[in-house]
């Protein structure tokens, strides 16, 4: 191990003397690698690393390749049209994000959705959470060269995408959550389909353990790589499964319950090791917990309205008819000029990758005066700078994958 790096160093030393291979600084023989946006191991970002031999000395994440100025754009959009804007950056788990935005809006408006709507929101959020975790595990697998993990992750994800499709009518951009409730009720066959899918997923998880988690190569690649201690995780403000894998049992669903989470039965998986393997394990455990949540929510699902009565009162007769016959909400035109009262509201949700924070400043006009949104990936970027140095070059994709970092979500 040591011998190899020394050998690389010695070879590279001679080469650098004869030929310019990169940045050489005072006394340091560093080679700068730009793991740029076209690189198969980078996603939508550029990671500049300086390597000394095989060891990474410095790492500078260069984000902003998907920066679409959503905070600025929303200042020019009416409140309803900001919902799709909020969905786009984190296309993997859109529902938690819309829930967060709508929660902040509802706090401003001072309304609260009926219980059935809360349960429906929770179910969709958990479906997307499973899908998002499977996506993250798939990306981790392909970063480690394990193509079967990638394909299985994306293949199993389709199941939950399809379920969400049945519930909301779209594959990934649902816009299902609206102020005061949800857009439509669940179809009658939905609980059965969900049960089938959940049973399949439970069987499938055993295969996952066999081929991925207990695979000797994967274990070697992930164990004791990218260790994040509890103190550092708290200090750097890390969030989501990455935080919980370091031994902090913080989960917004428990700490600050929103929607129906305080009435449902689930646990928050926590691991103590803080390495890449623990992060992956926590994600798998969260999939299991999400399965429990969905089952529990379907069991406890209350009957009743799916939209706040105050909004239902504004329906014209045709809308009322549609709502009563097909349980779909058509929005009255008045919503286009929805004007929440002056004030500020903050909401936070636990998205697939961690805590997302929404802050709306309203000046009483139909557009938000200022909309601030921090996403979990945005808060986790800092890990690239502080965690990666000291590891080997080959560990970079392993750590990146285990962080489940999604650049569009970070850039917004």
């Amino acid at each position, binding site marked *: *191990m040591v011998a190899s790096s020394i050998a690389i160093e010695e070879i*590279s030393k001679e*080469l650098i003397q004869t*030929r310019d*291979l990169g940045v050489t600084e005072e006394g340091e023989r560093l080679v*700068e690698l730009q793991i740029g946006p076209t690189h198969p191991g980078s996603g939508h970002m550029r990671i500049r690393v300086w390597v000394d031999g095989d060891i990474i000395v410095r790492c500078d994440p260069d984000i902003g390749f998907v920066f679409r100025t959503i905070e600025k754009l929303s200042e020019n959009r009416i409140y309803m049209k900001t919902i799709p804007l909020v969905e786009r950056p984190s296309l993997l788990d859109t529902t938690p994000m819309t829930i967060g935005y709508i929660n902040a809006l509802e706090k401003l408006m001072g309304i609260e959705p009926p219980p059935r709507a809360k349960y429906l929101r929770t179910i969709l959020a958990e479906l997307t959470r499973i899908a998002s975790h499977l996506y993250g595990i798939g990306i981790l697998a392909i970063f480690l060269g394990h193509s*079967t993990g990638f394909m299985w992750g994306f293949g199993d994800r389709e199941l939950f995408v399809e379920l969400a499709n049945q519930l909301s009518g779209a594959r990934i951009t649902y816009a299902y959550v609206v102020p005061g409730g949800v857009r439509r009720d669940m179809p009658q066959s939905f609980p059965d389909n969900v049960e089938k899918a959940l049973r399949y997923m439970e069987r499938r998880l055993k295969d996952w353990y066999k081929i991925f988690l207990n695979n000797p190569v994967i274990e070697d690649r992930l164990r004791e790589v990218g260790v994040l201690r509890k103190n550092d995780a708290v200090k750097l403000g890390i969030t989501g499964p990455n935080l919980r894998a370091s031994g902090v049992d913080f989960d917004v669903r428990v700490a600050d319950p929103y929607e129906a989470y305080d009435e449902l039965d689930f646990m928050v998986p926590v691991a103590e090791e803080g390495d890449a393997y623990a992060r992956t394990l926590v994600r798998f455990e969260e999939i299991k917990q999400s399965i429990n949540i969905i089952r529990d929510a379907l069991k406890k699902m209350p009957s009743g309205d799916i939209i706040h009565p105050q909004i239902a009162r504004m329906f014209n007769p045709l809308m009322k008819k549609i709502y009563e016959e097909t349980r779909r909400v058509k929005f009255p035109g008045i919503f286009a000029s929805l004007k929440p009262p002056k004030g500020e509201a903050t909401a936070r949700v636990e998205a697939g990758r961690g805590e997302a924070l929404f802050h709306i400043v309203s000046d009483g006009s139909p557009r938000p005066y200022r909309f601030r949104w921090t996403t979990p990936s945005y808060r986790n970027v800092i890990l690239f700078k502080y965690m990666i140095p000291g590891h*080997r*070059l080959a560990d970079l994709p392993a750590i990146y994958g285990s962080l489940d970092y999604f650049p569009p979500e970070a850039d917004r």
Partner: protein
Amino acid sequence: MMLPLVMLLKEILGFNDTIYRTVVGLGYMIIYPGLLLVVVIAALMLWAERKIVALVQLRYGPLWVSRRIGGALQGFADLIRFSFQEVIIPRRSDVIPFLLSPGLAILFSMLPIAFIPISPSIHPPLYSDLALLVVIAIISLAPIFIVIMGWASDNKFAFVGSLREALLIVSYEIPLIISIISMAVIYGSLDFYEIVERQYMLPGMILNPFAFIASFIAVLRTTSRFPFEISEAETEIVAGPYTEYSGLMFGLSMGLAYIKLYVYTLILSLVFLGGWLPLQGGEGFLLGFLAPSLVVIIKLSLLSLVAVFLRAIYGRYRLDQAIRLGWIYVLGLSIVSLIWSLALVYGGWVRWR
């Protein structure tokens, strides 16, 4: 196909040994089992790899290119596309080594075919009774050109890739050579004919399983199969030494791994799987040459299929882990295999006439 033609030539020209040997040798190297077969097998192996892996991953894999035969032409389509693409030579590259090294690497990995017999009746063009050693010596030269490729293209990723390749050659070539030598100890010969003959009762794989496992792992590494696809690990260093290669040049470099896989599995199937046995070889073209050689090719294809199938199961090791594995376990295994062979020979369990 070749043999009647050769007979005809023989009659026309009178018995001219030199011409006869030249024609047969060229046919051997260029058509069967040389270049043409290698290209066909490499293209089919490319397809088979994608197809098998797709089966594990609940997909179809390549299909629409030729739907009746399950997309088997996919490898050819890719190769043709590569060979008619533009070739970019980066301005900062060392042009001559950049252009020459893929060809030389392929040359040195193809050359061993000239020493390897695939049937009892037709001799390879260069017959030697030390063939096993010569073959291993020649094919060990090929990775050097991979290192040159990475160096000549003046790309940092290619450079890192070629350094990885260099480190891995050192740590896996030695176990391979030791385990092959341990087989030579058992057979008491370096001549492929004798090696195959002496497996008439038990294939070498059972005589010395340690050597088989050690050399198979080393072959996996040398041909960059998973879990040792480290020197061209795509998520770390793009395509390793081949990063700057495009068009036909990349086609050659991509084919290189499959050509090496062909040659190595050819050697392994002769040394460990009993070559053309159970066929003993007989009279005429069909029984003497074609049938035994087909047996060898089936055996080597099975071995390569196992090698490419591992892509569906494993990820890739880190460089230092692979090196540690090579120096501790694989080298240890090959030394055990050598001791095992010596014990078999000196204990008197294996005795040749």
